[in-house]
């Protein structure tokens, strides 16, 4: 028998990742926190409820149009705390650096993290630095772990999603994924698209004002909007209908996707939120969101439908419905 190996697709954030996590971690690490189905865990610490979330950032290149790994690592964790319904407070940073990495680059990244923390209203409170031999890392990897206070007025567990609810996305999709992809070796095109890398703490505050009318939210990072919608469908046991033409999408992103045979709905976003809200509040929420620069392109893209539990259906221009699956594995540029 061949021994099973970890493949890149296991880290794509799509179905392979889900299967790996389920088969390797869920069964051995079984505890109620892991089953909360959030972007982090909601914990009781003494009298206080807090959210905790962790992410490692392993991006190539480290500096990309619209951001860098430092900024990304802070905002990524801030946005996961927001998605948990928390007010982000503190962030830890664990750096793994490849021998030979430039001290100047490191200083840039550290400064970028600091600036990002300031902008997102969090503090970088503790850190760790490890160095590994040349060739045993890829420049620098950063883990950030964040904690925040759970807002008492909200509850963003996916089982609060109800039929008829509206689905909002807070801006144009796929920009981060495309901006980074354009930097890859072997892909010699250039694009004006920059990463959407931005913190969503103010979006979180805004949505908190709507209390329980906001059901649930998730930031569509790895695996993109399609994967997040599928996760929510699975976790809530409801289905989603999403109208293709209502999804905010920059034509430049769309053009690049057509060229490379990719689907923007599976490209990563680093400054967007998919939000499920009560139908009646949807229009007001979108209008509110559009007042913030970070969510000015917010739009209702679909609604919750009980009849297709666990599924996401995309309504095409012609009115047909087709399944929008999870990302199966990494998208690779292709010619056919």
């Amino acid at each position, binding site marked *: 028998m061949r021994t099973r190996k970890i493949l890149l697709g296991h880290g794509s954030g799509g179905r392979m990742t889900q299967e790996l996590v389920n088969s390797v971690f869920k069964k051995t690490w079984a505890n109620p926190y892991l089953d909360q189905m959030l972007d982090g865990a909601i914990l009781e610490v003494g009298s206080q409820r807090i959210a905790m979330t962790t992410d490692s950032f392993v991006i190539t290149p480290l500096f990309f149009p619209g951001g860098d790994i430092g900024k990304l690592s802070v905002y990524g964790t801030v946005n996961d705390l927001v998605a948990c319904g928390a007010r982000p407070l503190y962030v830890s940073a664990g750096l793994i650096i490849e021998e030979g990495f430039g001290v100047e680059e490191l200083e840039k990244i550290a400064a970028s993290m600091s600036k990002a923390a300031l902008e997102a209203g969090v503090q970088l409170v503790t850190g760790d630095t490890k160095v590994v031999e040349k060739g045993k890392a890829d420049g620098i990897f950063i883990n950030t772990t964040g904690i925040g206070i759970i807002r008492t007025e909200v509850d963003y567990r996916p089982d609060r999603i109800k039929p008829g609810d509206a689905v909002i996305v807070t801006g144009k999709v796929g920009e981060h994924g495309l901006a980074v992809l354009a930097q890859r070796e072997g892909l010699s095109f250039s694009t004006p698209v920059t990463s959407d890398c931005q913190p969503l703490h103010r979006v979180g505050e805004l949505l908190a004002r709507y209390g329980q009318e906001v059901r649930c939210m998730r930031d569509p990072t790895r695996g993109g909007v399609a994967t997040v919608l599928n996760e929510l469908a699975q976790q809530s046991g409801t289905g989603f209908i999403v109208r293709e033409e209502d999804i905010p999408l920059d034509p430049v992103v769309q053009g690049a996707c057509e060229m490379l045979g990719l689907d923007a709905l599976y490209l990563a976003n680093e400054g967007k939120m998919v939000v499920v809200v009560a139908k009646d509040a949807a229009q007001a929420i979108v209008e509110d969101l559009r007042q913030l620069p970070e969510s000015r392109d917010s739009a209702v893209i679909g609604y919750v439908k009980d009849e297709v539990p666990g599924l996401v259906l995309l309504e095409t221009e012609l009115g047909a419905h087709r399944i929008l699956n999870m990302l199966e594995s990494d998208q690779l540029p292709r*010619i056919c």
Partner: protein
Amino acid sequence: MRNSKEYAERLLADIKREKREVSLMEVCGTHTVAIARSGLRSLVPPNLKLLSGPGCPVCVTAQSDIDAVIELARRPGVILVTFGDMMRVPGSESSLQEEKARGADVRVVYSPSDALEIARQNPERETVFLGIGFETTAPAVALTIEQAAASGLANFSVWSLHKLVGPALDAVFSDESVKVDGLICPGHVSAVTGVKPYEPVVSRYHKPCVITGFETLDILEGIWLLLRQLNQGVAEIEIQYRRIVRPEGNPLAQAAIERVFTATDASWRGLGIIPASGLAIREEYGAWDAQRRFDIPEGKERIIKGCRCGDVLRGVITPYECPLFGQACTPVKPVGPCMVSQEGACAAYYRYGRSHRL
């Protein structure tokens, strides 16, 4: 585009007036994907069947060929360069993706020119480009080989698995069990070949052919034109995709293929060996022919138990009718090649069409 939507609805309304049982085959995988993505299949009447043909270069690549390429990728010093399409295609025991995880240097590019660049940057190693695709892709690879030859780039070569559209169509139509009434012909292949590959289809098999583009509107027009031919009782080659395709194709591209390649028998997954259906590198470019440069033992074709790719590729069954579909065979763990490529019929059906519940 309100206008185009209105127009699409009018085309569709008209298509729905067709009451006879009609089976149209889209040869090209890009069509398969476009049809699946647009949900078109659920909009046309059930008596109008849209079958998928052998037009996904990934799907038709023989497992023994994949095995040979994997063997090559394992050689120390080799950089294997490929389109993203090929990474997950299963050989008998592994795939390029798995070999990469085991340590082989396998790289994905968008253009064969990028492979040339990789060869230049790694002078002490052997860069091998895996050439796949039909007549659309073959000219690009031919020009790349000529460029390597012109600049004397000694550490670059191409492993050619290129295939030709004409012989594949012949294999489909010569099979009695295949019931196809008309052909949605591949727009981009035709941009190179022109109408020529479809001439036997109309002359020998009397099936209408429409060279069609890839927008939803294009496809609707293509179907509409096919139905019109069928209703009029004619079998001609029409070009719907006139903004790209000229009847004569692109003679320069044809000449490039001709200069560098020569037709050879090729093994097609699911269809077996088809005479003169592949492209081998000519003797004079032997120095850039990886099959000549590397001594790789020929792989053996193994039958994949239960996989009905062969029938899917000839339109004998739809992917749904394969017992492995969606169960043992999914895009993450594909059993057959039709599940691998984005444009493989099985993958397209899996991704976009698994449910009709709405």
